[in-house]
């Protein structure tokens, strides 16, 4: 394999990846380096390298590898998770890597030009559009909530839900960054991103729900998560404002400071999102006043009214009888 032509200053040459040709470094951060790659069939992939030197000691590095091993088979069982296709290296070496499906290109979608490729993430979309219509927020939030729920059901926590970790594959939103996925209640040295971290700290399903709530806040209001819970001054017409306020109720319930007041699980959150999407039903409202409540109230009113008329009639007739 030839060394890549474009090598950023300060970045070590990439290690070998079986049956893949590394083309270009597309992201580099504290979590590791991500390369654009091509497999033997010519399919473009993303390869993430995690280096031992990025960790202060061996334990979190080994934990990250173990988390990845648990995540890898699950990732391909849910459409809302980025598929991890191959894992290489081992925690005893200087690095390990994993091969993932590639996100759409920010400009050209599924047409990939390796020289200009830029992954389409939700963070990128926000820089271009600032704010998404509520219908789109719901369509994006539901599969991500579902993906989180799938992780939680398998005893895993994502720990770093944020717009940069939501990518689009064939236009469908998926959750990425398996690096922070860990078993519930396990401690980690890397603990997510400021503003998305729940007040009680990361590491629980409800902390993931909090982070997702902050993402939904950002995409629905166009405001930075730091401004939460302020609403935008410009809400559009009456219908758009009504949608925003109803969607805002879902956001607020996901982001309550007290974790016990948040959604119990992602299933409950999904219910509200899907209710909103398909029924245009107001979240929470029908839980307080079920549909049959109005019929019961009407029936009760008729019975009470009839009883009052009957009593009045009795009183009047008795009065007339005495006279």
């Amino acid at each position, binding site marked *: 394999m030839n060394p890549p032509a474009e090598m950023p200053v300060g970045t070590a040459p990439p290690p070998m990846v079986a049956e893949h040709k590394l083309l270009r470094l597309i992201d580099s951060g504290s979590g590791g380096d991500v390369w654009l790659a091509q497999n033997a069939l010519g399919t473009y992939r993303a390869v993430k390298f995690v280096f031992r030197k990025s960790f202060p000691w061996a334990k979190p590095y080994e934990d990250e590898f173990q988390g990845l091993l648990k995540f890898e088979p699950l990732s391909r069982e849910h459409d809302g998770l980025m598929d991890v296709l191959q894992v290489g290296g081992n925690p005893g070496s200087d690095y390990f890597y994993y091969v993932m499906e590639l996100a759409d290109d920010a400009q050209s979608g599924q047409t990939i030009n390796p020289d200009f490729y830029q992954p389409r993430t939700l963070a990128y979309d926000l820089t271009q559009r600032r704010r998404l219509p509520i219908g789109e927020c719901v369509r994006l939030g539901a599969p991500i909530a579902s993906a989180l729920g799938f992780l939680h059901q398998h005893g895993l926590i994502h720990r770093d839900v944020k717009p940069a970790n939501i990518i689009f594959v064939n236009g469908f939103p998926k959750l990425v960054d398996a690096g922070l996925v860990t078993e519930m209640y396990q401690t980690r040295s890397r603990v997510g991103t400021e503003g998305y971290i729940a007040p009680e700290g990361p590491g629980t399903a409800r902390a993931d729900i909090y982070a997702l709530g902050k993402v939904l806040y950002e995409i629905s209001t166009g405001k930075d998560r730091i401004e939460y819970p302020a609403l935008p001054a410009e809400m559009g017409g009456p219908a758009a*404002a009504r949608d925003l*306020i109803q969607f805002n109720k879902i956001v607020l319930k996901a*982001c309550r400071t007290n974790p016990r007041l948040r959604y119990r699980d992602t299933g409950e959150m999904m219910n509200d999102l899907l209710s909103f999407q398909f029924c245009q039903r107001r979240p929470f409202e029908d839980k307080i006043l079920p549909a049959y409540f109005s019929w019961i109230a009407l029936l009760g009113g008729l019975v009470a009214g009839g009883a009052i008329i009957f009593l009045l009639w009795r009183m009047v007739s008795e009065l007339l009888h005495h006279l």
Partner: protein
Amino acid sequence: MTWPADDFIPTRYSLLSRLQNWDDHESWRDFFNTYWRLIYSFALKSGLTDSEAQDAVQETIISVARNIQKFKRDPTLGSFKGWLRNLARWRIADQLRQRTNVAGRPMDMAETDATEPDPAELPDSAAAEAIWENEWRVNLMKVALASVKSMVREEHYQMFDLYVIQQWPASRVARTMEVSVGQVYLAKYRVLALIKKAVSTLETSEIQIA
């Protein structure tokens, strides 16, 4: 020991005391969250670009870290507010000087490392002081507001924000949020009371700098 009467804007003295321990990461984080916007806004209004202002914030915080151990709360030496202003001004002057060096003459590293640059290179003193004073007050309100956000129910803050900060009519807030006008007034009252309390707490914090 009391603080000088003209130093209206509070300084979080207990926080400053804790900052003398470099390993107290939480206090340093608290300090950064409290003061970075103030320094950043001051830098922008002193003529720096966004990236230069960000550098000035970083350098000012580093200067605080280097000098906080020496900082003694003594009215004759000046207030924390004045001390921080001077540090910020010097670091802003560094940025302006670097801009000049990049544009023409070679950079003198010894000069850029100086703690106190030539006063002639600093932004106009009276104007800078007025900007700093204004930014200090604005920052105080922002810090108080940020602390109150986490203390009230989110819906109440949203009503307060729309009604008081964004200045919507109460009836419009009520209609949009699907509540009564009375609830809007109540939210305003509750949040304002907490903000006043937060400001008061900041202003009267105990001085614990040894």
